[in-house]
């Protein structure tokens, strides 16, 4: 019986690992999801084999509700994926936290002898991680959703970091108290919970909206760690393993992002990034040359290699399908069109890939930064669509710039650069971009979708297609 459950968990673990392994290639990725589903089903099924399970009505209810809410949550537009992810991290944290609380209450009332120092430590860790993930992720989701009542720009006040850390320290102290005297100091437990919830909020407040993706990934690994802690509490290897997989994923993704932004964790978490620069952005504007859709269309028609650099703006404007049409028009004319994908273009790692894939652009055409930078000097035209920081040459030469050292796409090295954006406003980093005032650059002002529609009209008209 129990052995059976253990074996089911074993299979489940293996499936989880395969699930992530198959994500290394778009061809096998969907099989990966299948494996993941199977693994989760096995985990649930195995657990239900427990003789201890009796409250079937409660289980049914909660599970049913989960489906009712979960299915619609999966219909969100791709631009809202970051918010959704943040939101479900919040759910994950909540679940972990609640289970921790429940276990503690249970043992406190029904068998204090179970509250060993080891288990209590695990419980406290689980609860702190869980609840700070909960409120933290909610805040993150709010900032990403750009809710009115949650400030986008980092909110800072004197001694902020100090007081935050002090708060966390206090939570940990109380935690130690409960670990030391689980029964006598039981009253400290709610305090720990409350402090964790509060800390989650304060942790996010000073972080700029666009830094959220990094934060989300970090919260992702916290969620994983809390699952690990739960595993220690419940003496469950499956939880430990899956939690570890999750934790490492979040960790690695956030590291990748920080590298691609050439910033450190501390800078992301405590740097209040995108605040100072906000002022810098209000600098005077240099002379810029603009180009008409007609002109732009002609130039691209005659080009032999066109490199398209999509950015956050394309995501905001939902312009990926227009991009696809442009791609079709140009390839129809024998123009070689490639996409230059910066690892942190947009607001999530791999954001651009998903959007362009949605528009059914074959993924062989999505070239990674380092590879495309070799070809750019040969490119006749580079078309920047709502990208800014990821093509800002200042990152290469201007020590003073906040993004100095961040690897960028060398759009300025192409023979000609066309840039679609609505204004001369800065991007996420909030800094001027000399690319737009360069000699070889011509601006196409307007909403990305609108401008691209014009371009396509020009081409289809000119080319007599449709």
């Amino acid at each position, binding site marked *: 019986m*129990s052995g059976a*459950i253990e074996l089911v*968990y074993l299979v489940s673990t293996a499936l989880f690992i395969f699930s992530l392994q198959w994500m290394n290639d778009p061809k096998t*990725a969907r099989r990966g999801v299948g494996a993941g589903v199977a693994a989760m089903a096995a985990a649930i099924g195995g657990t239900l084999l427990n*003789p201890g399970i009796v409250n079937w009505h409660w289980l049914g209810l909660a599970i049913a509700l989960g489906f009712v809410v*979960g299915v619609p949550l999966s219909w969100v537009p791709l631009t809202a994926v970051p918010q959704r992810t943040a939101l479900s991290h919040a759910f994950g944290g909540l*679940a972990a936290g609640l289970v921790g609380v429940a276990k503690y209450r249970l043992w406190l009332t029904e068998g204090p002898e179970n509250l060993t120092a080891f288990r209590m430590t695990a419980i406290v860790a689980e609860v702190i991680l869980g609840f700070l993930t909960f409120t933290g992720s909610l805040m993150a989701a709010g900032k990403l959703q750009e809710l009115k009542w949650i400030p986008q720009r980092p909110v800072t006040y004197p001694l902020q970091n100090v007081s935050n850390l002090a708060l966390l320290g206090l939570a940990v102290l109380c935690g130690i108290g409960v670990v030391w005297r689980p029964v006598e100091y039981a009253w400290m437990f709610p305090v720990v919970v409350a402090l964790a919830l509060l800390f989650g909020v304060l942790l996010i407040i000073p972080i700029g909206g666009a830094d959220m993706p990094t934060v989300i990934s970090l919260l992702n690994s916290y969620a994983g760690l809390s699952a690990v802690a739960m595993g220690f509490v419940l003496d469950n290897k499956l939880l430990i393993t899956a939690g570890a997989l999750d934790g490492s994923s979040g960790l*690695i993704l956030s590291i990748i992002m920080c590298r691609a932004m050439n910033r450190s964790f501390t800078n992301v978490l405590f740097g209040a990034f995108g605040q100072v620069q906000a002022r810098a952005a209000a600098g005077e504007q240099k002379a810029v040359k603009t180009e008409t859709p007609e002109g732009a269309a002609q130039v691209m028609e005659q080009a032999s290699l066109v490199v398209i650099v999509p950015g956050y703006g394309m995501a905001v404007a939902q312009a990926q399908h227009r991009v696809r049409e442009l791609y079709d028009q140009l390839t129809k004319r024998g123009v070689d069109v490639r996409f230059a994908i910066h690892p942190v273009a947009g607001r*999530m790692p791999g954001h651009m890939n998903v959007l362009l894939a949605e528009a059914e652009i074959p993924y062989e055409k999505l070239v990674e930064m380092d590879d495309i930078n070799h070809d750019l000097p040969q490119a006749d035209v580079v078309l920047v669509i709502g990208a800014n920081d990821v093509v800002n040459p200042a990152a290469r030469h201007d020590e003073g710039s906040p993004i100095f050292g961040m690897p960028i796409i060398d759009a300025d090295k192409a023979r000609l650069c066309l840039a679609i954006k609505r204004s001369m406003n800065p991007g996420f980093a909030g800094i001027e971009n000399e690319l737009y005032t360069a000699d070889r650059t011509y601006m196409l002002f307007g909403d990305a979708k609108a401008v691209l529609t014009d371009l396509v009209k020009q081409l289809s008209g000119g080319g007599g297609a449709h």
Partner: protein
Amino acid sequence: MTLRRRLAPALLAAAASLPALASEPAAGPGAAPTPFTTMLYVLMLATFIGLSVITRVSRLLHTPLMSLTNAISAIAVVGSLVITGADHPPLITFLGAVALFASMTNIVSGFLITDRMLKMFKAQKPGGGKP
């Protein structure tokens, strides 16, 4: 009638390695909980696997990866099931049920949206159809 009484027979059978219930009060010391070091050992191995597997995930798929791991982190469902399912005082059961609801939401939405995204990734085929 306490949990102890009701579960006793089942637990005698389930003893030794029933992870979820092993830590239930009724199980007590009898169930020989896995030693701390063993769990640490498992954690270490799992972390090695996690790091090596994730670093090899295609950059193309980092967004789907986020939502997939998001679904996987809902493994907390195991804990929620045990809490909710076992016969406990209402408060506990309620806490468990909320946790279970939250986890299920993540599982369902996480896997669905991951698959939805992955469906979009298509290799180049002669004259691939327009949207």
